[in-house]
């Protein structure tokens, strides 16, 4: 049958190859069978997950690690709905993924057919763009556009809804590089006028502060950020997703700012006379109460997304463009500033208010993170789940390299840690160990993916930091709700070592701080497959510093308060 046309499914697989995709994550089902059939004849590796949410987080982790587009392939109905959390997570953190979701046949659309769900309709609000393909001949163009949209500009998730008759039927349209996207614009350089204005403000600044976000990392602006900081002699703070874009160990680094940021970063925010956001979107976790955030400082904002201008606050200068290109425009226009005094002040805060944690009591999550950071000399790929441990990773892991730390920032998706770690491991070319830090709550949301890690013998290190509580919620109930603990007790947690062993995974245990270094060393040296380290941690520990949600930065709390605090006014 040499002359018979390719099926829609075969065209999709060929398009994946043309996009340079060699690994995808998926879970089959009735409507998806034509695509899973076609992929057998390709050299694309399909990682069979245990849940479609896992597939999307893996695609996301792979994308964050490699900078390439991650792909998830799932079936219709529940297969598709299970991807929604992953799609939304990718949208909130501007991560490029393409979700290929199978669908019932086109004549069945709208008729409540078996496993039919209005996938594109239900995901409109969570995607960068989406397609419902009704004609096989549209496939080459749609695939081309989907990958282009996912990876370019401000990256994000693209969903393709693929009816079974479209994938099973013949496609006679040729492969194409042509796209039909008249409404899609990708900013590159900012207007000269805006950059010149920014340079003027910088020249007048005595106390400048650079704020580095995920956008800087995505655009690959790490070198330019460093060059700008050093050229100006300006301190730098990072958002959670910006960590690593500027080395934490650099003398100008103030680490992470915001709700659980360092005292010195937040003091710098309060005291600076100019703040330049490079690919950060002034998230509420960073600004706290808006009308006092950098109240008297000049605010400048570089963002590739024009809709970010004025969304949260009105900047004095908005430079719309790719962070790397805009910094290249800005660099020749600026020189060393008179900031010696300011840098000295920031450095004295660093000495006076270092990040610390109590050494007495049981095993501390901070101690685990610190030890892993020390033993790997910070040369590791790290993913986190969401909660207290996530903040402690941000505080105590020495991130010095871009694309080193992957965390669900905007969405705060519990269950992200393990699957994103698996995805990152598939994309990892650094030779460094790939590690995930999870809490006991989030880990259990996607722990079925232990099987995925085991089958592929991925040498990932899974730290389950178990305090038998939903720690962050418990912390809020402790501090703001009269210690009335409601539904935070994780009674019923399994023995995670035994759980690992049930999957044929090496399980290790840390109960005492004194054992941490030895066990972690053992875990790092084990490379036959995954290893799970069950850390039985101090039950009631709180993350500090903390700025209560919606409060001004001046309300920063640095240690357990003696009295009950007002309920926070901000969201979550």
């Amino acid at each position, binding site marked *: 049958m040499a002359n018979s046309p390719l099926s829609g499914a075969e065209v999709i697989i060929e398009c994946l190859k043309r996009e340079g995709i060699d690994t995808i994550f998926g879970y089959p089902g009735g409507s998806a069978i034509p695509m899973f059939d076609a992929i057998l004849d390709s050299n694309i590796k399909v990682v069979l997950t245990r849940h479609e949410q896992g597939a999307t987080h893996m695609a996301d982790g792979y994308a964050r690690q490699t900078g390439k587009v991650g792909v998830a392939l799932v079936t219709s109905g529940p297969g598709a709905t299970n991807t929604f959390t992953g799609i939304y997570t990718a949208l909130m953190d501007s991560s490029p993924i393409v979700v290929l979701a199978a669908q019932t046949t086109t004549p069945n659309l709208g008729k409540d057919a078996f496993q039919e769900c209005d996938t594109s309709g239900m995901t*409109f609000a969570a995607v960068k*763009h*989406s397609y419902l393909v009704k004609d096989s001949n549209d496939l080459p163009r749609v695939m081309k556009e989907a990958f282009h949209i996912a990876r370019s500009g401000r990256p994000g998730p693209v969903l393709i809804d693929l009816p079974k008759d479209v994938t099973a039927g013949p496609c006679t349209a040729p492969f194409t590089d042509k796209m039909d*996207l008249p*409404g899609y614009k990708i900013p590159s350089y900012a207007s000269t006028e805006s950059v010149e204005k920014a340079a003027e403000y910088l020249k007048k600044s005595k106390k400048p502060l650079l704020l580095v976000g995920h956008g800087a990392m995505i655009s690959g602006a790490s070198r330019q950020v460093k060059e700008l900081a050093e050229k100006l002699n300006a301190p730098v703070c990072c958002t959670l997703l910006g960590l690593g874009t500027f080395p934490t160990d650099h003398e100008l680094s103030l680490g992470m700012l915001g709700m659980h940021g360092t005292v010195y970063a937040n003091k710098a925010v309060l005291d600076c006379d100019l703040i330049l956001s490079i690919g950060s979107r002034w998230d509420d976790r960073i600004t706290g109460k808006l009308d006092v955030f950098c109240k008297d400082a000049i605010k400048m904002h570089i963002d590739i*997304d024009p*809709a970010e*201008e004025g969304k949260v606050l009105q900047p004095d200068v908005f430079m719309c463009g790719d962070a790397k290109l805009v910094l290249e425009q800005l660099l020749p226009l600026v020189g060393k500033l008179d900031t010696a005094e300011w840098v000295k002040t920031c450095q004295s805060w660093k000495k006076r208010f270092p990040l610390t944690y109590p050494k007495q009591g049981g095993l501390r999550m901070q101690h685990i993170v610190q030890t892993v950071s020390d033993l790997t000399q910070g040369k590791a790929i790290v993913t986190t789940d969401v909660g207290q441990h996530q903040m402690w990773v941000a505080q105590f892991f020495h991130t010095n390299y871009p694309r080193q730390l992957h965390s669900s920032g905007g969405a705060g998706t519990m269950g992200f840690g393990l699957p994103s770690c698996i995805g990152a491991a598939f994309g990892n070319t650094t030779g460094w160990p790939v590690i995930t830090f999870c809490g006991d709550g989030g880990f259990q949301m996607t722990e079925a993916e232990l099987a995925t890690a085991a089958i592929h013998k991925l040498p990932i290190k899974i730290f389950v930091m178990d305090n038998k509580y939903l720690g962050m919620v418990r912390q809020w109930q402790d501090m703001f709700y009269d210690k009335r603990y409601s539904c935070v007790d994780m009674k019923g947690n399994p023995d995670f070592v035994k759980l690992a062993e049930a999957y044929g995974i090496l399980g290790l245990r840390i109960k005492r701080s004194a054992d941490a270094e030895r066990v972690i060393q053992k875990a790092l040296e084990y490379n036959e497959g995954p290893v799970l380290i069950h850390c039985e941690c101090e039950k009631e520990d709180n993350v500090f510093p903390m700025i209560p949600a919606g409060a001004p930065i001046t309300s920063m709390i640095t240690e357990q308060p003696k009295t009950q605090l007002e309920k926070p006014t901000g969201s979550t």
Partner: protein
Amino acid sequence: MLKDKAHSISLLVANRPGVLVRIALVFSRRGYNIDSLVVSPTLDPNFSRMNIIAHGNPEILMQIIKQLEKLVDVVQAKDHTDTDAVEKELALIKVRCTPDQRTEILQLCDHFHANTVDMTATSMIIQITGNSQKVDTLKSLLQKFEIVEYIRTGKVIMLRGEEQT
């Protein structure tokens, strides 16, 4: 905070299924309502023109317009609230009336250049075109009689002169 007023937003969009939902979601996620909506194909059938009227905080509406512009299927989004544009609406107003009330109604229609498009022994349908204020005024004058039913198209907008809307 500026005061809320009606904004006229004009969109040029790809003529594809789902576009309207994507646009509506940008409003609904903030709990904003669309007061009126007109959609029609342009000279090029690959594109449609939409005119949306919405009330709300002007700063938030500006943000909404930027987020509309960001949609892949939206080619252009513009606020025409204070621009020099021709703005027209068409309304049909059904009035219950006795034969001896007709003369007065017809006089009103004449004054507003409105037409009678249906007449029975007990009712009339009046068609009026013009700017929103004109339609509002005729409607309020007709309230003296019994308005049985009333529908309007929503605003269509076109910039004056050669400039494209």
